C-alpha cells in the first residue's frame, strides 16, 4: 500500500526508526545503553496502555501488576524450572492475557473512578502475591533471572539488547497504529466519545473494551519479561502501585490518544529522573514542577500540543466553514 511520507503513520514510523538507528552514536557507555533500553521497554508498555487510556478512554491503575506478572512469570519458569526463556516469556504472556480476559469482564463494566479503584485493587493483589510468595519469587529481596537465550545464543551485551528492544518498540508502535486505523480501533475511539452512540451503530462496547484491556496487558507483560531477563535481577519495586501511576503519568504526559506521545512520555519520564539526580535533594521537587508546568502549558500532553501548534499551517482548507454557518 502506497502512503504519503508526510502522513503521521508512515512519517512517524520513519522518524522513530531513524532515532532508534542513530541514537547509539551518542550513547558513549553502557549506562546510557541501560537507560535507552529501559526507555524502550517503558515505551512498549505505554503504547499499549495508551490504547486503553488514550483511545478507548478506560483507566487502569494496575498495569504494573501485568508488568510484574510478565517479569516474575518469565523469571520463575526460566530460572526456577529451567524452561527456555523464550518459552517462559510466551507462557507468562498467555497467563497474563487469560487473567486480563477473566478479570477484565467484570471490571470493565465499571466506569471512571470505580474502574480506577478496581484496577488499583487488581494491581495491589498481584503485588501482594509476588511479595509474599517468597519461595517462588524471593519476596521483597527479589530474585535473579537467567539471561535470555534462544538455543545456544545468549543475549547478554547491552548493545544487542538495545537493537532487540528497539525493533520490538517499532513493532509495538506499528501494531498500535494499525489497530487505531482499523474498524476495531475506530470502534474503540467511538465508545470513548459516546458509548451509547457506538452501541447503536452495532459496536459491542464491552467486547471492545475487553479486547483492548487484554492487548495492553500483553504489551506490559512482554516488556516485563524482557526487563527481567535484561537486568538479570528483579524485585517487587516495579510491581508497586507507584509504578502503575508512573506508567499512567507517562501516557498522560506524552499525550493521550497519541501513540508517539506515549513513546515521548515514556522517554521523558524515564530519562529525566536520571539527569535530575545531579540536583540531589531538589530532584523530586524539580521533577514535580516540570510535570505541573507541562500539564498547565500543554494540557493535551507534549505531542498533541506540539502537533496542534504546527497543524493549522499544514492543511489550510481543513477549518474552512461556509459563510452561511457563521451566524448560526
Amino acid at each position, binding site marked *: 500500500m502506497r502512503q504519503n511520507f508526510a502522513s503521521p503513520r508512515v512519517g512517524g514510523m520513519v522518524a522513530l526508526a531513524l532515532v532508534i538507528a542513530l541514537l547509539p552514536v551518542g550513547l558513549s557507555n553502557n549506562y546510557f545503553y541501560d537507560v535507552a533500553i529501559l526507555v524502550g521497554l517503558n515505551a512498549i508498555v505505554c503504547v499499549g496502555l495508551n490504547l486503553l487510556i488514550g483511545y478507548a478512554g478506560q483507566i487502569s491503575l494496575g498495569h504494573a501488576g501485568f508488568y510484574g506478572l510478565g517479569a516474575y512469570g518469565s523469571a520463575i519458569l526460566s530460572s526456577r524450572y529451567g524452561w527456555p526463556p523464550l518459552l517462559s516469556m510466551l507462557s507468562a504472556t498467555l497467563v497474563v492475557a487469560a487473567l486480563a480476559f477473566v478479570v477484565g469482564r467484570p471490571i470493565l463494566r465499571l466506569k471512571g473512578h470505580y474502574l480506577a479503584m478496581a484496577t488499583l485493587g487488581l494491581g495491589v493483589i498481584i503485588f501482594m502475591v509476588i511479595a509474599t510468595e517468597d519461595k517462588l519469587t524471593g519476596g521483597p529481596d527479589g530474585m535473579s533471572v537467567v539471561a535470555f537465550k534462544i538455543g545456544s545464543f545468549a543475549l547478554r551485551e547491552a548493545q544487542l539488547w538495545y537493537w532487540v528492544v528497539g525493533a520490538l518498540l517499532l513493532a509495538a508502535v506499528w501494531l498500535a497504529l494499525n489497530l487505531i486505523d482499523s474498524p476495531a480501533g475506530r*470502534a474503540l475511539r*467511538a465508545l470513548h466519545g459516546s458509548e451509547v452512540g457506538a*452501541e447503536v*451503530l452495532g459496536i459491542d462496547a464491552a467486547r471492545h473494551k475487553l479486547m483492548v484491556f487484554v492487548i495492553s496487558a500483553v504489551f506490559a507483560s512482554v516488556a516485563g519479561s524482557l526487563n527481567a531477563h535484561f537486568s538479570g535481577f528483579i524485585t517487587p519495586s516495579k510491581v508497586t502501585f507507584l509504578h502503575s501511576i508512573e506508567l499512567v503519568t507517562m501516557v498522560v504526559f506524552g499525550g493521550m490518544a497519541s501513540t508517539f506521545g506515549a513513546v515521548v512520555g515514556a522517554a521523558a519520564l524515564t530519562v529525566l529522573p536520571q539527569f535530575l539526580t545531579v540536583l540531589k535533594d531538589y530532584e523530586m521537587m524539580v521533577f514535580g514542577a516540570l510535570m505541573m508546568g507541562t500539564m498547565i502549558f500543554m494540557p493535551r500532553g507534549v505531542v498533541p500540543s506540539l502537533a496542534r501548534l504546527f497543524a493549522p499551517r499544514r492543511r489550510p482548507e481543513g477549518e474552512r466553514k461556509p459563510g452561511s454557518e457563521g451566524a*448560526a
Partner: protein
Amino acid sequence: MSLLRVENLSKEFGGVHAVEGLNYEIQPGAVHSIIGPNGAGKTTLLNMLTGVYIPSDGRIIFEEHDLTGLAPFEYAAHGIARTFQNLQVFFNMSALENVMVGRYLHERCGLASALLRFPRLARAERACRDEAAELMRYVGLQDYLSTASTAMPYGALKRLEIARALATQPRLILLDEPAAGLNPTEALDLDVLIGRLTERGITVVLVEHNMRLVMGVSDHILVLDYGRKLAEGAAAAVRNDPRVIEAYLGSSVASDGAAASAGSAASAASAASAASGGGQADLRGTSH
C-alpha cells in the same frame, strides 16, 4: 405485514410510567411521526426500540424477530438505526470518521487483520472512507469532509448523526427531534432529506415538535401523552383530533371551540414560533 410491532410496551422508572401499555405498528416504507408534549415518553420509546432501555413489560417485534431484551448493538445489526435528541457525536474524531464508524457492521474484521493491516483491510478502508464521504454529501455536509467534529455548527452535527446512522444501512431509522435547535430554513431543508430517505427504501420514524415538518412529511402520526397512546392515524385526522389539541394547547383553547380547526391552530402556532426564530419549540407542550 408490519416492519415493527410493539405489544403492550411499558417502561417504568421508579414509579414513573414513562411509557405504558403501548401497542403500535410501523409499516414499511412510510414516514411515521411520534409527537406529544415534553415528558410524554417519546425518547423513552426510541430508547426501547434500540435496546438502550430494556422494557419493563411488553414485546418488540422487528421483521418477525422478537428483539425484546437484546443489546443496542444487536438492534443495530438487525437494521435499526437512530439519531439522538441530545447529540451523541464522537467529538474525539473527525466528521468523516464519525460516519466511518457507522460502517462498522459492514467493515469489521478479525483482530489479527486489524493489528497486521492485511492488504484486503487497507483496500476496504479506502472504500469505507469513500462511502462515508458520499454519505456526508448526501446529507448536505460536503463542506465538512475534512473538519474536526468539534469545529462544526449544531445544525451540521444533527445531519452528521443522520449520515452516521445511514452508514449502518438500516431498514428503519429513528430520528429524535432532528429539527430541534435548527433555524427555520435548516428545519425546512430537513423534509427534503427525510423524503429522500424513504426513496432509499428506508422507513422513517420521526420524533419532532416542529409541527410544520411533521405535517409536511408524515404518512402516519402517533400522539403520546403521559406515556400512553392519545391518538393515532393519518396526519390530517390526527391534527383535527380534539384530544390532541387539548393535550397540546391546553383545555382552554380546546374547550373554547372557537379555535377554528385544530389544523389552523397548529400551523398558526408553528408559524409564530418559526417567525420568532425559536424554531424548535413550536408546539412544546404544556408541561414545561
